[in-house]
């Protein structure tokens, strides 16, 4: 091998003249986490709404929810990012489109929206599965007690459903963190983008990528352990435990 290892590279100043390479990687980690968390909040909110809609007795609402899921699931995330970033401002009225294009941190907002909508389709699948896994009697009991349909969802079905689908939701959350790397294509300086920049500027390819890989693994382990603790504390007594769904990415 004629590759020259240089682990000291992390403490050298990066081309921005202020921060060391290590600090730029940490800044990237911050953007990765901020993007992933914001997108996750959006995905949970939208995904819950769509997931609930798909289990309501209204056929048209359920169909609409199905169409929503197909739309966001059958287009690659990268293409969706491009649609939000390059195409949407052109389709809007000129003033609004120009405002969007000039927004500071536009790539961050776009990444959050794109990632949020993309993930919401997957979250809605889990929410729907969670609600469908409950005995029909629970819905009937709620309605028979005089609760309205929204109340039945809010106080009877959803509190159970969320606790059952916590494990697959955890892997969806891990997916959001990983998928946020796709946002480097629209110029978001998150962790992978910083590692790539470090590789281009310092030519220390493998040190840069090793550092990024290690940071991703640490985030993964931290989230997994944190969620296991939450799962233990929210487990529904008397159930074997919801079977974890196959992780996708």
């Amino acid at each position, binding site marked *: *091998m*004629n*590759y020259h290892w240089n682990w000291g590279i992390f403490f050298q100043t990066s081309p921005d003249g202020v921060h060391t390479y290590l600090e730029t990687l940490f800044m990237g980690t911050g953007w990765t986490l901020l993007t992933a968390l914001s997108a996750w909040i959006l995905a949970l909110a939208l995904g819950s709404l769509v997931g609930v809609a798909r289990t309501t007795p209204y056929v048209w609402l359920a169909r609409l929810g199905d169409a929503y899921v*197909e*739309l966001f*699931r*059958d*287009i*690659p*995330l*990268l*293409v*969706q990012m*491009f*649609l939000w970033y*390059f*195409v949407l401002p*052109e*389709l809007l009225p000129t003033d609004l489109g120009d405002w969007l294009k000039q927004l500071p941190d536009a790539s961050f907002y776009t990444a959050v929206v794109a990632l949020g909508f993309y993930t919401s389709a997957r979250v809605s699948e889990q929410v729907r599965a969670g609600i469908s896994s409950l005995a029909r009697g629970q819905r009937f009991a709620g309605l028979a007690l005089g609760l309205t349909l929204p109340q039945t969802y809010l106080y009877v079905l959803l509190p159970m459903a969320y606790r059952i689908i916590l494990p697959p939701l955890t892997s969806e959350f*891990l997916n959001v963190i*990983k*998928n*946020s*790397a*796709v946002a*480097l*294509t629209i110029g978001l300086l998150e962790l*992978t983008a910083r*590692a*790539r920049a470090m*590789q281009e500027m310092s030519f220390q*390819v*493998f040190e840069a*990528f090793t550092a*990024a*890989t290690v940071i*991703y*693994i640490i985030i*993964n382990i931290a989230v997994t352990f944190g969620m296991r603790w939450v799962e233990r504390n929210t487990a529904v007594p008397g159930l074997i435990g919801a079977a974890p769904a*196959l*992780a*996708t*990415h």
Partner: protein
Amino acid sequence: MFADFDFDVIIRSLPYLFYDGMTFTLMLTALATTGGIIFGTALAMMRLSSFASLSLPAAAYVNLMRSVPLVLMIFWFYFLVPYIGQWVTGASRPIQVGAFASSLVTFTLFEAAYFCEIMRAGIQSISRGQVAAAQALGMTYAQTMGYIVLPQAFRNMLPVLLTQTIILFQDTSLVYVLSITDFLGAASKIAERDGRLVEMYLFAALVYFVISFVASLLVRRLQSRVAIIR
């Protein structure tokens, strides 16, 4: 808003998009799926092995691959494959490999981790009694796996394997980060050359949508046909 829409740019670039771009995308999908399933099945058998020397490395590999973004892995292998090539062939310099070979290695090794988890679930869905019966008949481990366990595991997991293939098909668009001319890469090159981002990206989205949607409908139909009646 579609007034100055230029459909002609799509028509003009169709041969380039499909002959150059889509061929790359589909070839990569097909070969990476094949390689990924073969390597993934081997990994699954390793993970289920009672020898820790086999199960631990396999588990570590799968967990590593599943913890990092695919984009990062694409970068990793793009720079790593020339060195692996040098090491394998004993050449004195890193070997220059093409874009296709590099992405094929990346996707095969990355997706193998996901295929491994699917095959592991498939193997674990076979009842223990069948393995015991095979052993009682005097079958070796290879015979038990090859004739009894794996055929059923494949059949049980076929819909899931195909769904993962659709995901792989969508994931191949990420080779864009290496400026490779896959379907999206071709669309984006035309888009930037002619300043027609809106048309080209909408068209690309439509094509990906139609292919993935039709494929997932077929998988759903297949699912009801291959299910083993119990």
